[in-house]
């Protein structure tokens, strides 16, 4: 048994239809482990309705805490902190702003009174749940919390682990918008990156930036232009650009209100049916052909 292949779906710009595409792929894959790595705004569970399996606390960082009894209000901590996380004054004493604290521990190290200790911040949770299409690893990041990259890595690792355990051939990762730390954490080692974009000036611009990141990692990538009929001229330009840039394939999906209706109905696009369902099925066939010839036989006809 070869280890599971990993498909990572990203977009650059938000709101292009990543999660709807991932949910449809889950329905079409006939047995894949799913990883919702948009930990900032995880939405996959809203269409896949998982039965919650196990929940595990996530601690992404440590935070400094000042013991008011031991503190002599010398102010050394405030002096060295680069994150403006030490609040107070020599008269009022000092406390730590838990949101601003980066967990660098410098204050603890320099405190002459040894009044500062570090405590792990439980700032999220990750869950292993069951959907009708396979296991789903998802997470919740406490709002106003840092370290989404670390949580993304954890979610991916757990999804790979469960795929191996259950001998599933594929892991499908729903990524974050943007190009920063959660996106970078979701990319390394992927077998195929599918970027879902739209033919808008911002969709094109943001796709260009995120594909630069993908190419820095030297990963094979493909592109799906969603809502392609919104601006056929720009769709053609995007198709030409990414083909020239070496995309494995470029697929287009026309705007279909059924995608939103499926979401409102709390179901995936494939179950809901319609034109987009047929088109996304074709994208899935292209994805599975690139990923592995052995997956092709498992494609369900749309």
């Amino acid at each position, binding site marked *: 048994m070869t280890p599971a292949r990993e498909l990572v779906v990203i977009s650059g710009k938000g709101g292009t239809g990543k999660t709807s595409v991932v949910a449809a792929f889950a329905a079409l894959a006939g047995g894949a482990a799913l990883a919702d790595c948009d930990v900032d705004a995880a939405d996959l569970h*809203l269409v896949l309705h998982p039965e919650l399996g196990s929940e595990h606390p996530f601690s992404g960082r440590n935070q400094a805490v000042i013991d008011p009894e031991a503190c002599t209000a010398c102010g050394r901590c405030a002096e060295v902190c680069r994150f403006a996380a030490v609040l107070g004054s020599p008269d009022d004493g000092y406390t730590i702003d838990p949101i601003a604290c980066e967990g660098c521990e410098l204050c603890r190290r320099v405190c002459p009174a040894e009044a500062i200790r570090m405590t792990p911040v439980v700032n999220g949770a990750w869950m292993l749940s069951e959907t009708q299409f396979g296991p789903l690893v998802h997470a919740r990041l406490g709002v106003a919390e840092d370290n989404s990259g670390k949580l993304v890595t954890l979610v991916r690792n757990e999804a790979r682990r469960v795929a191996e355990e259950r001998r599933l051939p594929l892991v499908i990762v729903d990524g974050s918008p943007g190009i920063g730390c959660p996106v970078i954490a979701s990319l390394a080692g992927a077998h195929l990156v599918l970027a879902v974009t739209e033919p808008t000036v911002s969709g094109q611009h943001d796709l260009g930036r995120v594909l630069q990141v993908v190419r820095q990692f030297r990963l094979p990538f493909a592109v799906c232009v969603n809502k392609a009929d919104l601006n056929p001229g720009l769709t053609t330009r995007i198709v030409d650009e990414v083909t020239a840039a070496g995309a494995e394939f470029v697929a287009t999906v026309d705007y279909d209100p059924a995608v939103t209706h499926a979401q409102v109905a709390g179901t995936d696009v494939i179950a809901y049916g319609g034109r987009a369902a047929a088109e996304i099925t074709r994208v899935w066939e292209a994805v599975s052909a690139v990923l592995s010839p052995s997956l092709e036989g498992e494609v369900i006809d749309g």
Partner: protein
Amino acid sequence: MRIAIASGKGGTGKTTLATNLAALLAGRGVTVRLLDCDVEEPDCHLFLHPRVEHRELVNVLVPAVDEERCTLCGACAEVCAFKAITVIGSTVLVFPELCHSCGACSLLCPEKAIDEEGRDTGVVEHGIVSLPGRPAFPLVTGVLSVGEAKAVPTTRATLASADDASVDVVLVDAPPGTSCPVIEAVRGSDLVVLVTEPTPFGLHDLELAVEMVRALDLRCVVAVNRADLGDDRVHRFCADQGIEIVLEVANDRRIAEAYARGELLLDAIPGLEEELSVAWERIAAAARRQEVPS
């Protein structure tokens, strides 16, 4: 007055609202400055075509080891909470992308062998937007370098011109989500406008965004895009939470197509300027209500 425009979910219309509001206000003679703080994917310039007047690089500090003085004692590696510096054999290895610039290694090196040097992770572009028939206004754009993981220093540098008493209104276009770059972008604003759409994803991510706003002790109002598209759960949520809906824009293919071409909706969609004016009055009133006397 500083107004941040944010959303839990991406693609709901933050940039559309920010750029059109800025143009609207400029047209009314309000001195406005737009800060594009979605530094991972800054898009305001695609709609406003600024003339960039100057660029400043965003520097973060990373350790620079003086090999003459270094005794390879390993104290730096021991005090680094982020595993960004380590001693391997006879060299000290720095991983700049892991460094949080806390200064611990430099301060605590017993040999004073570590200095800090700047590393560019982004750029802030200061531009002037000149739209036909409207007074020019500044657009400040933060651009994170491709391949960089940490957006916050660039966000912070973009916000450096936010507190300027000579400007009536500062508009901040925030990134999507609720994590650190978003927090950085919305902090310090008098009001956060959360843009959403009435779908399950829109509602779920709005709930997270409202939670974030409250965790930061800020206040918010909501703008609903594609308002007739989904169901009424966003409206019910806002009513339950006592959050004012300041703007509702119907799902309109003309809007989607104008946006796709990079056009300002004020120019492309007749009647929208009036709707947006009403929305601005509500936003400004809500922001003024929040200006708590200290």
